[in-house]
């Protein structure tokens, strides 16, 4: 019998939570099996389903996940042991000696944390980045006419490794910091890493946020079921009606950076940002909705980012869990390091209270954004993307005092609506430029596209042949516009703190069902699927 399918994984299309197999086979079967299992066994069913899912999309590469779980369990317990010993050792000692002994133990714990980092980052470096680095070294060697060429390996990467590695690392650091107790229960730890809705595209959860929730899952409640399904539907609308419909246009322009004038490039850049937002936040709606059905509350990954007033605020509202991870595990540890603190105090004396801390902050920010860029992929355009944001955010902070003075002199009310709208539009434009480089096939191509906006800003290609060339028609763009208005309206209502699903739940059943039927029919009719459309992979699954 041919068993090779065991290695390959049988459901690659399931990386998309809007794929037919996932929505109409995997998820329903999972829910039914889960629902009929006795309460005590539910968590194990959830774990089994999660591992099955991972195997279906990644095949034998599920081994990496297990390896990661085993390593963090051992390292976590080791840190716990060291902490216990430390406590016992310092108990009887006088105050002066306490510190030295404590330091000794902390050193050991740090070594264990370092080992954890080495395993996870090392694995990522080998699997995800070795090809990129070695390829660049080869280019460099060739530039110096060096006859040596290094072998550039390429590895099969398990889906979601960029996501679960970060979760694993956060667990070890949290144990080290004493924020969570080391877990002796392997199954719970594994479920924390592998919970199937979040494994492909996040959100990146902390042990303290989800582990105990996942381990205490109960029966499916009707309210959770309806709320979860409604959220999945809403995400489906974003992904199928808007994101997938814009795909041909975006693809065309970014693949042929030389063939369009500035006007079209602006259009494509805007469309790409819209596509990315709708794709990723739509997928997140599906993820959080699915978790909600099980009664699990995952952290939100989006908080209406396009209402942000600055780029730095934008990154607190877009892919929140990634930004928070970098902030907690890179930014603050770097700035809190002793040398950095010394740097800060000496810089403050020389540069003043505002600029002084920016020296250390800038270095930390640089680390964050180089990591952020590389996390998205091994490529110069991603590094460029990171550096672009680093410069924007740092310079935003540097000019704060100056811009405040200017505003005061011009008598502009910084909290007035007009200025707010100006800030929001400015932020959006800056973000769109960043995403243009993010999407471009390489930095050169990105520069070409960006340059054309200025050197070739005309709308001469806006004729009746433009849209057919771009693979869309006026109806596509119109329906995207209409749907975006719906999303915009919902965002404004959410921004005011109103939960639409709860408001809806209070209405009578006829009204409720009519709204849902309208939403479903809207997706069925206006969705970009089936004939004439190629299913688009979720954009963040590849990172």
């Amino acid at each position, binding site marked *: 019998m041919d068993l090779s399918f065991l290695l390959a994984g049988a*459901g690659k*299309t399931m990386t998309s939570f809007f*794929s*037919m*197999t996932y929505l*109409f*086979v995997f998820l329903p079967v999972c829910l039914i099996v889960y629902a009929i299992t006795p309460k005590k066994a539910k968590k194990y069913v959830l774990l089994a389903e999660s591992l099955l899912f991972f195997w279906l999309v990644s095949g034998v590469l599920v081994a990496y996940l297990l390896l990661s779980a085993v390593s963090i369990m051992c390292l976590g317990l080791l840190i716990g042991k060291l902490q216990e010993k430390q406590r016992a050792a310092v108990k009887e000692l006088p105050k002066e000696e306490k510190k030295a002994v404590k330091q000794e133990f902390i050193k050991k714990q740090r070594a264990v944390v370092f080992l954890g980092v080495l395993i996870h980052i090392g694995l990522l470096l080998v699997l995800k980045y070795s090809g990129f680095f070695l390829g660049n070294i080869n280019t460099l060697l060739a530039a110096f006419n060096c006859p040596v060429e290094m072998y550039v390996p390429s590895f099969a990467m398990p889906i979601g490794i960029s996501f679960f590695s970060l979760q694993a690392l956060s667990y070890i650091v949290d144990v080290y910091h004493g924020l969570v107790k080391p877990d002796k229960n392997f199954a719970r730890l594994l479920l924390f890493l592998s919970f199937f809705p979040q494994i492909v595209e996040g959100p990146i959860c902390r042990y303290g946020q989800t582990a105990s929730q996942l381990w205490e899952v109960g029966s499916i409640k*009707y309210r959770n079921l309806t709320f979860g399904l409604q959220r999945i539907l809403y995400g489906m609308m974003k992904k199928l009606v808007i994101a997938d419909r814009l795909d041909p246009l975006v693809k065309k322009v970014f693949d042929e950076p030389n063939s369009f004038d500035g006007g079209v490039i602006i259009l494509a850049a805007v469309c790409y940002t819209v596509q990315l937002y709708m794709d990723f936040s739509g997928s997140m709606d599906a993820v959080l909705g699915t978790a909600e059905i099980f009664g699990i509350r995952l952290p939100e990954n989006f908080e209406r980012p396009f209402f942000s007033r600055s780029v730095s605020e934008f990154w607190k509202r877009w892919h929140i869990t990634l930004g928070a991870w970098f902030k907690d595990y890179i930014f603050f540890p770097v700035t809190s390091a002793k040398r950095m603190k010394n740097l800060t105090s000496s810089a403050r004396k020389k540069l003043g209270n505002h600029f002084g801390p920016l020296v250390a902050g800038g270095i930390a920010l640089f680390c964050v954004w180089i990591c952020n860029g590389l996390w998205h992929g091994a490529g110069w355009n991603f590094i460029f993307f990171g550096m672009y944001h680093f410069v924007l955010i740092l310079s935003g902070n540097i000019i704060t005092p100056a811009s405040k003075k200017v505003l005061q002199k011009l008598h502009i009310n910084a909290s007035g609506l007009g200025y707010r709208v100006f800030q929001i539009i400015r932020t959006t434009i800056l973000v769109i430029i960043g995403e243009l480089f993010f999407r471009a096939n390489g930095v050169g191509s990105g520069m070409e596209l960006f340059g054309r906006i200025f050197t070739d800003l005309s709308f001469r290609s806006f004729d009746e042949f433009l849209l057919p060339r771009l693979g869309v*028609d006026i*109806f596509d763009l119109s329906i995207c516009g209409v749907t975006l208005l719906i999303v915009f309206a919902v965002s404004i209502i959410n921004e005011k703190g109103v939960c639409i699903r709860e408001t809806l739940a209070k209405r009578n059943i006829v009204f409720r*069902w009519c709204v*849902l*039927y309208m939403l*479903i*029919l809207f997706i*069925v*009719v*206006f*969705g970009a*699927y*089936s*004939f*004439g459309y190629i*299913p688009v992979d979720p954009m963040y699954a590849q990172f």
Partner: protein
Amino acid sequence: MKETIKNTFKGILFTLILLALLWSVSWIFIPRNNTQDDWKYDYTANGFLAEPDNSLDVLFLGDSEVFSSINPVRIWDSYGITSYCCSTGKQRLWYTLEYLYDFYKNQSPRVVVLETDLILKYFSIDDLILHAPEHYLPVLRYHDRWKKFSFDEVFRTPQYTYIDDYKGYHFYSDIDAADEEGYMEKTDERAYISKMNRLYLNAILSCCNRNGSKLILLSTPSTKNWNMKKHNRTQQLSEELGIDYIDMNMPEYSVDIDWSKDTKDKGDHLNYYGAVKVTDAIGEYLNSLGILSDHRNEKGYAHWKDSLDKLKSDVKNKLKTEYVSAETKKNQKDKEVPENG
């Protein structure tokens, strides 16, 4: 418990109403005609809808290999046999079965020829789940026709008026030579066929049997899409199912494709010249079955003559040569042989 039963009931009711809704809105989206404008996708393959009832005796099913290499008009010219190519780009077996079902609604073909390229081609469960319900809820397939929505149409029943001159065949004049290296290299290995493909193949066969049609497997020549592994698997399948199999990639069928001239895209598809050779070979085979009648002088087949005229003028305009019928070609060849010998 009572709550659970109530909620389950609610869920079922919700789903039933939803299905009813989808079914009823489907009516709005069904194409009202089979013209390119109405159908948008694969309209040439749907041209059979406008052909007179029970006028087509042979059905060719397959992906782009079929519409590029089989010319029903030429078969008509040679033998008076009426046939149609329900072939669409990247066709998969689930779609093939749909065409077969649709075809039997108004036609009763004696022979069904299934091109083998798609038999071994993988299709995902996703495709299956997406497309299987389309048969019952057409809105899922034709939803994109909201772009053409008009109020008059809603109250009109479909009427098919588009007759495809070439009966599903696509005329290609380009020449782009193929690299023959490794083509049909000998091996005993067999290509993989998935369980699902096998199920669909069985379904197609039993549908043909039910309707009294003879099913034939045909591999058209292609350096890119065909190889010995696939041949071996198909050979084995045909023996298992007890159906005829013609592989025109094999030398015994003497199709004599000239890979420097007869392909339009480096051996992926044939052009007009290649199609002539394949068509003559399959025409001869169909004729030799002895179950297909010659309709050339019968009433109600006049539009085939128009098609032939169109083919002749297209050959003249696009290729700058005269149309050579199968008979003339044969006579020429017969003459050549003694000269050379």
